[in-house]
């Protein structure tokens, strides 16, 4: 599958809906920031220097050993993609919004199953990203680490004994490591415990933010937990810290679910089936409403209320209902109202198929 194909379908490894603790954890991600010695950081490079960096990275990732770790890799200049195609890659969580905001002199390396992507000339020369389904931050880190080792065989990184891997922004310096997990926390939101958790996380060097939307008003009850500190701890310590803390959040979410199910089963079932009804019949759905209903459907699967839907279908719905994906489907740009009605159509089709199964 090529990158041009990747922007046409809603498949990405993380969306498979497999992996440990998938009733709460959607995906685990690791990102390593690396820079080449002898070049200024990307925002301060000339066009020629940027082209040289792209060339150097391209050569480094073409080694046979790299593909053995990642599967077939494809290399593409961001300017070869249309703005909508670039946005789709953001909606699939494959690249950062910053990377596509200014596509000139930037490139992307993407593995076939999209579990590995390398952004070239984003904020740093290389941003190696690994993204796996479910709760597996350690496995994700090991994968990123192996790829990093292979690339380092041929590229000279900016590294200093005292400060570690030097990055364009000092918030990433040291390990250059950002590890994160995406969590679905509907019952901690319902019981108004999320605010407390966000505060507690900041005390242990972690940040929690809504994946769509801000703060505790996250659409779809999707939250991302990530490390803030990148220096003074080893990579293993950072990953273990996040792992331990996330385990507690998972346990709390499960407890909240059990309690609500025990005491308010009808309310919860009503919520799930209402979402199913709305999604099956609505003619216009905004992006926020879709995300919130998708969350309720997911909760329905998680609690065994809905049996004819899968995690994979739910993850697909999240991506398929984002604005750029809808525009790609329509083949033209859409105003918000047109988008809402196409979104409703896409959802209806998906659910109809699910019901038929």
């Amino acid at each position: 599958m090529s990158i041009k194909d990747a922007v046409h379908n809603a498949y990405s490894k993380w969306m498979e809906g497999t992996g440990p603790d998938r009733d709460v954890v959607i995906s685990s991600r690791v990102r390593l920031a690396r820079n080449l010695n002898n070049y200024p950081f990307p925002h301060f490079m000339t066009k020629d220097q940027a082209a040289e960096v792209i060339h150097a990275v391209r050569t480094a990732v073409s080694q046979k050993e790299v593909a053995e770790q990642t599967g077939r890799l494809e290399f593409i200049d961001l300017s070869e993609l249309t703005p909508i195609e670039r946005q789709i890659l953001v909606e699939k969580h494959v690249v950062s919004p910053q990377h596509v905001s200014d596509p000139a002199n930037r490139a992307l390396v993407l593995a076939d199953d999209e579990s590995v992507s390398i952004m070239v000339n984003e904020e740093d020369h290389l941003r190696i990203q690994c993204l796996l389904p479910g709760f597996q931050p350690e496995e994700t880190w090991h994968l990123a680490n192996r790829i990093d080792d292979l690339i380092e065989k041929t590229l000279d990184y900016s590294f200093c004994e005292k400060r570690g891997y030097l990055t364009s922004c000092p918030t990433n310096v040291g390990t250059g490591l950002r590890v994160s997990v995406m969590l679905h926390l509907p019952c901690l939101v319902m019981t108004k415990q999320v605010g407390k958790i966000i505060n507690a996380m900041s005390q242990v060097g972690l940040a929690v933010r809504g994946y769509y939307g801000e703060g505790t008003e996250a659409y779809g009850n999707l939250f991302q937990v990530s490390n803030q500190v990148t220096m003074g701890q080893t990579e293993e310590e950072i990953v273990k810290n996040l792992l331990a803390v996330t385990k507690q959040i998972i346990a709390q979410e499960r407890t909240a679910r059990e309690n609500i199910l025990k005491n308010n089963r009808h309310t919860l079932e009503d919520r799930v089936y209402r979402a199913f009804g709305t999604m099956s019949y609505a003619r216009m759905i905004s992006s926020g409403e879709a995300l919130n209903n998708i969350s309720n459907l997911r909760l329905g699967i998680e609690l065994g209320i809905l049996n004819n839907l899968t995690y994979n279908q739910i993850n697909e719905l999240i991506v398929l209902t984002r604005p750029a994906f809808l525009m790609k489907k329509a083949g033209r740009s859409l105003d918000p109202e047109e988008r809402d009605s196409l979104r409703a159509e896409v959802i209806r089709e998906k659910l109809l198929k699910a019901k038929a199964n």
Partner: protein
Amino acid sequence: MLCEKCQKKQASVHVTKIVNGEKTETNLCETCAQGENAVGFGFEPQWMLQNIFADLFNQPLAGGQPVTVSRGEQVRCERCGFTESQFSKIGKLGCAGCYDIFETKLDPVLRRVHGNSRHTGKIPKRTGGLIVIKKEILDLKEKLQTAIKKEEYEKAAEIRDQIRGLEKKLE
């Protein structure tokens, strides 16, 4: 409800703005809301941490001494020409060399952000060659101390020999 701005279309976006603690609420249609830049439709990069970071850089250093930038004689990186005021503005550095040039100013800021200003993690295998050995020696020296404390002298002697071997490599 009609949009409070154009008074034509149905209001479907509720905008809450908090500016300097003052809360204002308006109901707009999607078109006006987009024009107002009130709603993120997912196309703009999100608010970034480095903005706070740039602010931190301008804070007085611990000890209450305010940071003064004297005009005309700005510190400038010899390697890439990046200046201190550019850093204060965008919160990013120009090149690896900037970490040396701005070291004294960066140190307290790194401590504030990371609680630490020294890297203890991974070292690149090829380019970090000597550093890897130095780190190994440090780790072994720690092990040596533990072994001595536990009075495991045979083990300590083994570790001592390993350290000597590595130190030879460094020469």
